[in-house]
């Protein structure tokens, strides 16, 4: 089939690449509302990329399972008898019925409620009612197991899966920036997810939620009432002129405030015990200073980041690694948000209590920050999809061409500047490359390497 003649749209490579003007930072607003582009995203981004499934601590025992998504495909994420975590499409091989209709639970096997086909925790078909009598033994059970994700792998206990057999291994996919992002969560030692994922649906395009996580420009204005209500003091963490951006292959990025180099040098000279003592003198009860080992996980420069990583496409890490948010696409104008709170297993009961208290009140649908995000994102989707409003270019031009990437002696690439939109541009630029590539071979060959010069 010639490029651009796919059944789900008539988008040629050139037309897809033209949807974001990387030189000027202007996005075609159809990217945020067009149904055919959305269908293509499910295929070329979600079914192709590595998707976050869970943290291992969420499935401690054999048979523990939860349901997650790869795009709009439901998957069962389950720990089997051998201790392995499997990712299985939640659709019976017989007539497509969902095996799991619960969000999470404990199972010995998965029995389809339609005709009773029974699958093991590893997805093998182990029982079919009437196999001898009705099927006359003419059904190959081996060939009718649940469809498995092509690859499942984990980093620091965070489990990811892809439906693409030809996707690069997880560590290559994450690259230095993705690894640094997850390192932000793992920096304080082995972690566990606190029970309870906050979930809600926002009427916005999923990418509006994603580009917002890099956006430190909106914080003062969007979240003015989180500040004036006394919940937080934005000026204490924003550091508008001390921002650091890291751009990684395949669309990963980290953006936000950073520790000045000179201050990090001082911290590097402290023992872990001294760092714990120092953190106690800082404002806020959940501020942490990363231990020595963190530089190994995040890089000597990356460890300075106090900003927001996104693991492309849709996993946000925030609050210095205490929370993660998955943005699940539910149509061009609808996104489901899942909030995970993650604390080190060895955290003191007091830290744990303070962390949960802050996390419960910052984000999620009732969060003092996120209430207002939902309003802005849904209206940014709605008010930008009309005939005339949709024809206006989406402006992502802040600081375009004004900054340079520094490459450290160890090869880390970072931009130090004021508040900016570099990571948002990187997101949409990478998005065009993912969308224009017909397969992983094309994406591998044609994606942009992480910038090393002017941006």
């Amino acid at each position, binding site marked *: 089939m010639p490029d651009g003649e796919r059944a789900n749209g008539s988008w040629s490579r050139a037309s897809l690449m033209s949807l974001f003007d990387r030189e000027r930072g202007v996005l075609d607003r159809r990217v945020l509302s067009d149904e055919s582009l959305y269908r293509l995203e499910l295929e070329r981004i979600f079914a192709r990329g590595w998707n976050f499934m869970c943290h291992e601590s969420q499935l401690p025992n054999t048979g523990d399972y939860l349901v997650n998504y790869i795009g709009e495909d439901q998957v069962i994420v389950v720990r089997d008898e051998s201790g392995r975590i499997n990712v299985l499409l939640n659709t019976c091989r017989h007539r497509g019925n969902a095996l799991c209709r*619960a969000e999470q639970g404990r199972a010995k096997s998965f029995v389809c409620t339609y005709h009773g086909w029974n699958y093991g925790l590893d997805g093998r078909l182990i029982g079919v009612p009437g196999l001898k009598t009705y099927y006359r033994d003419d059904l190959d059970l081996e060939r009718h197991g649940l469809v498995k994700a092509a690859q499942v792998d984990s980093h620091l206990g965070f489990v990811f899966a892809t439906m693409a057999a030809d996707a690069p291994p997880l560590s290559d996919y994450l690259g230095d920036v993705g690894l640094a992002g997850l390192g932000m969560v793992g920096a304080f030692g082995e972690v566990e997810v606190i029970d*309870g994922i906050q979930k809600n649906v926002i009427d916005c395009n999923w990418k509006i939620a994603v580009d917002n996580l890099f956006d430190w420009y909106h914080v003062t204005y969007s979240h003015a009432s989180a500040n004036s*209500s006394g919940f937080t003091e934005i000026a204490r963490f924003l550091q508008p002129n001390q921002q650091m951006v890291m751009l990684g292959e395949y669309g990963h990025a980290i953006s936000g405030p950073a520790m000045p180099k000179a201050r990090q040098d001082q911290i590097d000279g402290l023992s872990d015990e001294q760092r714990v003592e120092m953190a106690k003198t800082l404002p806020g009860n959940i501020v942490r200073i990363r231990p020595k080992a963190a530089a190994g996980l995040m890089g000597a420069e990356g460890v300075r980041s106090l900003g927001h990583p996104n693991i492309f496409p849709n996993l946000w890490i925030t609050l210095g690694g205490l929370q993660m948010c998955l943005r699940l696409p539910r149509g061009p104008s609808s996104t489901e948000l899942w909030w995970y709170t993650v604390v080190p297993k060895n955290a003191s009961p007091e830290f744990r209590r303070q962390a949960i208290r802050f996390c*419960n009140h910052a984000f999620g649908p009732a969060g003092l920050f996120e*209430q207002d995000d939902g309003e802005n994102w849904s209206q940014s989707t709605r008010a930008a999809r009309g005939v005339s409003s949709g024809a206006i270019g989406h402006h992502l031009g802040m600081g375009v061409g004004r900054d340079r990437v520094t490459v450290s002696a160890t090869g880390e690439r970072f931009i130090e500047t004021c508040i900016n939109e570099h990571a948002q541009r990187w997101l949409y630029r990478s998005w065009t490359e993912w969308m224009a590539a017909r397969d992983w071979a094309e994406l591998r060959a044609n994606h942009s390497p992480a910038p090393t010069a002017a941006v």
Partner: protein
Amino acid sequence: MQLAERVLLQHEVEQFLYAEAALLDARRYRDWLGLLADDIHYWMPIRRTVTVGDLDMEFTKPGAMAYFDDDRQLLEMRVKKLEASTAWSENPPSRSRHLVTNVRIAGVEGDEVTVEACFHLYRTRLNSEVDGWVGRRIDVLRRAGDSFRLARRHIFLDQTVILATNMSTLF
């Protein structure tokens, strides 16, 4: 307790809950704060779709993640936020109606009355957004002069995934 006492208590409790709901619906949040005990615990755990065999994990437990897990200080912050003209999720403000029903007195201990009730919180905002939250509340009302103070409100929603852009209203 004699029937006459029970009827009187039922009447007092219902009138308190209706008056409280009316304050929220009238956006008189500061007056609403006046009905709360200083040690109030206002909590809405996360509910999940689970199978019959896993019903023990239907709700998150106290101390874990929740949609609301507020003390008085946090509720005061929420009210300050509702009063601020920069709380974009409430400016223009939502229109809400708290329907409180099936009010049952579950226990009386000293000066505290435990009350179970069902509610339907209808919230509409802008011109096309409609949210409806139905659920059960377990309240503890503490005697204060000839009225009560709300000392505990535990809210058990019937939705699992919250089908709304936000929950910027009070339950």
